[in-house]
């Protein structure tokens, strides 16, 4: 790139860009349903529909599939890569090696093809003549413009339709089920029949060109399976929005920031569809704020007034919310904050992935402040934990942070369908006017039940004893201003007790163990996918059996302590430079267990892949 280096092809991960060995590939057997496709395009070129059709066609063939959009922080003109991984074994992490390249971006095509491993395949614009760079890759040059012009008389649509040509070429080469492709395409365009017809013609043109001109010279094939029946495809932000709708969230105040914006945008769509009464009146209020300070302020104000409220943001927004987060903790205000993490620090790489906000969120704000974090590891958990978060916020009367990330939030994932919530909303300890009459009053911050959680009243409660004074300054049990040392300590210790109550209410970790292995792995969020795959690699390639625990929340439950204590070495796998989760564990563990911890980190902005974990662990184990 002349102006900005947003290189992202697999080659950019290696320190030196070198021409690979060019000895000829040996004749190979077929590789079925287990490879990755990378589509290199320019952002703003409208390739998303084509990529989605390709992904959903594979899904419709019953083959486990995942897609990742690797895009620059830019609207149009910079390189973008979309990777699709088909995996008969159900692996959904990023695969480090690209098996099939569809090179649609002349700016990066040379670099793209050089990054391929020996034996890969490349589909590219004929005029680029990429074969000159690699004679160890199966090359399929396509005259895209000529084919597009033939099926699309309208010149201004050609840029979009052109992308469908590669769908057809890939479908032919991979021997895809064309019924599945057509069904996926027609679903994609839904009611726009004309557009669907035009695009389908382009797919067919690509298919026919490939059939007439190419001799297949690569091992990759797609064959129907039965592994996606009844499954859905959704991104994590849409799933979290859905969860928020079913959690009965009523107030949303937000400031747009990548990669969180689509969470609220999905919520807006859903709310308009399902939360407006027959009289046209809304059971929700959504306000685009002037900044993240206002967003969190309104969320806490709404929570104080009794509403289920939320905002969605990313790292820079979290930084701005710091002061309010402390108020929320200390004045004990419910609210839900979705942090769809991206690469920091500062503006960082806004469209790249990271699990980099753990430490800052856990202790966000000044003074002795700590927060509850829920950490979804799948789209289904984005949905479920959104609902958990609203319940916990009101139960614990504190802000709850849901720690998603770009990879989970913005990419499409397969999932079992989501279940309808069976439990009623848990609105926490709220006293009504009748309660106040019965009790003869209340003290807002008194620990009546021994769990550190007081009873609150909502503004508008029709009782002369209902009101109390909420403040971020020192307050006693009766919510009166105080600077008395004993009052302050008493209150802070109660808040600590409340945090211990939170520990017992957190979603339990997921544990996979044989009980025989001395090595434990700990991962969380989107590090889970690669960790699962790595465990299989370790077993298959190195006969190394590992136990596994996936953290789902902070504060840590006892099971996490027990898991660490029962293994000699525990590798904490995470996507940040400073081993943030490991640091949080250290603060929580007995000293004798801290020494068991090892760290595997990945923080280059790309989603974590299994090979990175396997290589690192094998090296640390000295195998």
């Amino acid at each position, binding site marked *: 790139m002349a102006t900005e280096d947003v290189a992202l092809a697999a080659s950019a991960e290696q320190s030196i860009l070198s021409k690979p060995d060019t000895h000829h590939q040996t004749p190979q057997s077929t590789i079925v349903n287990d490879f990755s496709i990378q589509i290199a395009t320019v952002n703003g070129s409208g390739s998303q529909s084509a990529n989605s059709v390709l992904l959903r066609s594979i899904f419709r063939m019953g083959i486990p599939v995942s897609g990742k959009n690797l895009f620059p922080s830019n609207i149009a003109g910079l390189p973008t890569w979309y990777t699709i991984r088909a995996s008969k074994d159900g692996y959904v992490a990023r695969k480090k090696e690209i098996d099939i390249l569809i090179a649609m971006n002349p700016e990066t095509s040379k670099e793209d093809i050089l990054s391929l491993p020996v034996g890969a395949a490349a589909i590219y614009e004929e005029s680029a003549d990429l074969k000159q760079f690699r004679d160890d890759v199966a090359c399929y040059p396509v005259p895209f413009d000529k084919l597009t012009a033939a099926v699309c008389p309208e010149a201004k649509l050609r840029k979009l339709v052109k992308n469908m040509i590669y769908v057809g070429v890939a479908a032919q080469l991979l021997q895809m089920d064309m019924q599945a492709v057509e069904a996926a395409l027609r679903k994609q365009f839904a009611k726009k029949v004309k557009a669907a017809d035009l695009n389908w013609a382009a797919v067919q043109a690509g298919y026919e060109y490939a059939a007439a001109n190419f001799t297949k010279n690569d091992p990759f094939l797609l064959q129907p399976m039965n592994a996606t029946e009844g*499954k859905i495809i959704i991104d994590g932000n849409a799933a979290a929005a859905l969860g928020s709708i079913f959690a009965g969230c009523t107030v949303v105040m937000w400031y747009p920031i990548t990669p969180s914006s689509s969470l609220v945008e999905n919520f807006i769509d859903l709310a308009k569809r399902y939360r407006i009464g027959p009289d046209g009146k*809304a059971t929700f209020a959504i*306000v685009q704020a002037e900044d993240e300070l206002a967003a969190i302020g309104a969320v806490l104000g709404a929570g104080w007034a009794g*509403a289920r409220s939320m905002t969605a943001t990313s790292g820079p927004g979290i930084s701005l919310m710091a002061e309010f987060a402390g108020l929320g903790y200390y004045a004990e205000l419910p609210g839900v904050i979705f942090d769809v993490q991206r690469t920091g620090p500062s503006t960082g790489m806004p469209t790249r992935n990271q699990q980099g906000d753990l430490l800052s969120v856990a202790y966000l704000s000044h003074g002795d402040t700590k927060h509850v974090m829920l950490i979804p590891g799948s789209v289904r958990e984005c949905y479920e934990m959104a609902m958990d978060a609203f319940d916990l916020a009101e139960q614990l009367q504190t802000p709850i942070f849901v720690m998603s990330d770009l990879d989970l939030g913005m990419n499409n994932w397969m999932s079992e369908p989501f279940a309808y919530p069976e439990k009623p909303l848990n609105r926490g300890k709220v006293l009504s006017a009748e309660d106040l009459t019965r009790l003869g009053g209340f003290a807002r911050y008194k620990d009546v039940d021994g769990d550190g959680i007081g009873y609150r009243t909502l503004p508008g409660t029709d009782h*002369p004893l209902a009101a109390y004074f909420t403040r971020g300054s020192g307050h006693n049990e009766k919510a009166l201003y105080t600077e008395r040392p004993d009052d302050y300590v008493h209150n802070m210790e109660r808040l600590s007790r409340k945090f211990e109550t939170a520990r017992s209410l957190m979603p339990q970790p997921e544990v996979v163990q044989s009980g025989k292995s001395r090595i434990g792995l700990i991962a969380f969020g989107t590090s889970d996918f690669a960790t699962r795959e790595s465990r299989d690699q370790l077993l298959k390639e190195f006969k190394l059996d590992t136990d596994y625990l996936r953290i789902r929340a902070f504060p840590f439950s006892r099971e996490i302590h027990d898991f660490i204590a029962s293994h000699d070495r525990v590798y904490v796998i995470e996507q940040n430079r400073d081993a943030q989760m490991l640091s949080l564990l250290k603060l929580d563990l007995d000293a004798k267990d801290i020494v068991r911890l090892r760290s595997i980190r990945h923080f280059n902005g790309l989603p974590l892949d299994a090979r990175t974990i396997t290589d690192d662990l094998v090296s640390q184990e000295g195998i």
Partner: protein
Amino acid sequence: MATNPVPSAPLEAPRTPAKTNRIGLQVLDYRGGKTTLCAGCGHNAISERIIDAFYEMGVQPERVMKLSGIGCSSKSPAYFMSRSHSFNSVHGRMPSVATGALLGNHTMKALAVSGDGDSASIGIGQFVHLMRRNVPMIYIIEDNGVYGLTKGQFSATADIGSKLKTGVINDLPPIDTCTLAIQLGATFVGRSFSGDKKQLLAMLKAAIAHNGTVLLDVISPCVTFNDHEGSTKSYKYMQEHDEAIDEVGFVPFFQEIDVEYDPGTTINVQMHDGSHMRLRKLHEDFDPTDRVASIAAQLHAHANNEVLTGVFYINTQQPSFTEMLNLVDEPLGTLPDDRVRPGRAVLEEMMQRLM
């Protein structure tokens, strides 16, 4: 109140039945805790007028929420209306908290107290956005031109040439929150003086009757840090420079209108709740429904070293923010589960669509 100190009761029980307002409450029911502000602080006088206004208007205190930021002024909600929920939030960020609270329960009356530092300096960002949304609430700036709690630094409403006790002279122009509010979309804007009981009370009662953002900039001298010679926010300066643009009269909806007015000199404004505000023009050509004229009057006053007071702008037609959101009639916060959680069929339909 169980949670706030009950204001001291009179030593002897009154012989005659206590005076009550139209909903049967005594003025005592509108009082708050004992003030901890300096003796003579303008803020205390404003608190008294707030008590009077809400008492006289017969507003149920439980239907009011009080909001504030940080500073001397923001402490004052503790000193009035203890039967109202109150939220003393973060410095400069009260507008967002108030907005959220009103979204959570838009059936409440919201009364916000802020200061010139809290609104015009650290909080100017949230202030302007609250004004442009026309959030239905009363927003009082207790304006003394200095920071009190941090001991006397200038705020952004300090006038050019105004002198601190230490002798430092302010050479930057002030932010005129009223002009800003009119320009941005607030629908009831005025300025008063903590020392002008009559005007302030009438304006507060009219504010209660309004539906939309009411911005009242109340000059409220700081007796400790800004009441000296050379200050433009002192009692003395206000007595000499207070220039009323209109005389504010108010007839609440529950009172029969028996006062005649001259349509040639007085503008009669019918308020949202049926009350009437009467603005007798003291300045020729003044029209409080004309934003441009109103802003021009402010600029002229600044040039003449006058502190313009009275109601500057009123618009009773503009829908408030919560009306624009077209919310259901009940508070969002306490809607029952079945009104906020869609049914099983909705999820099933969604899942089908995603397959």
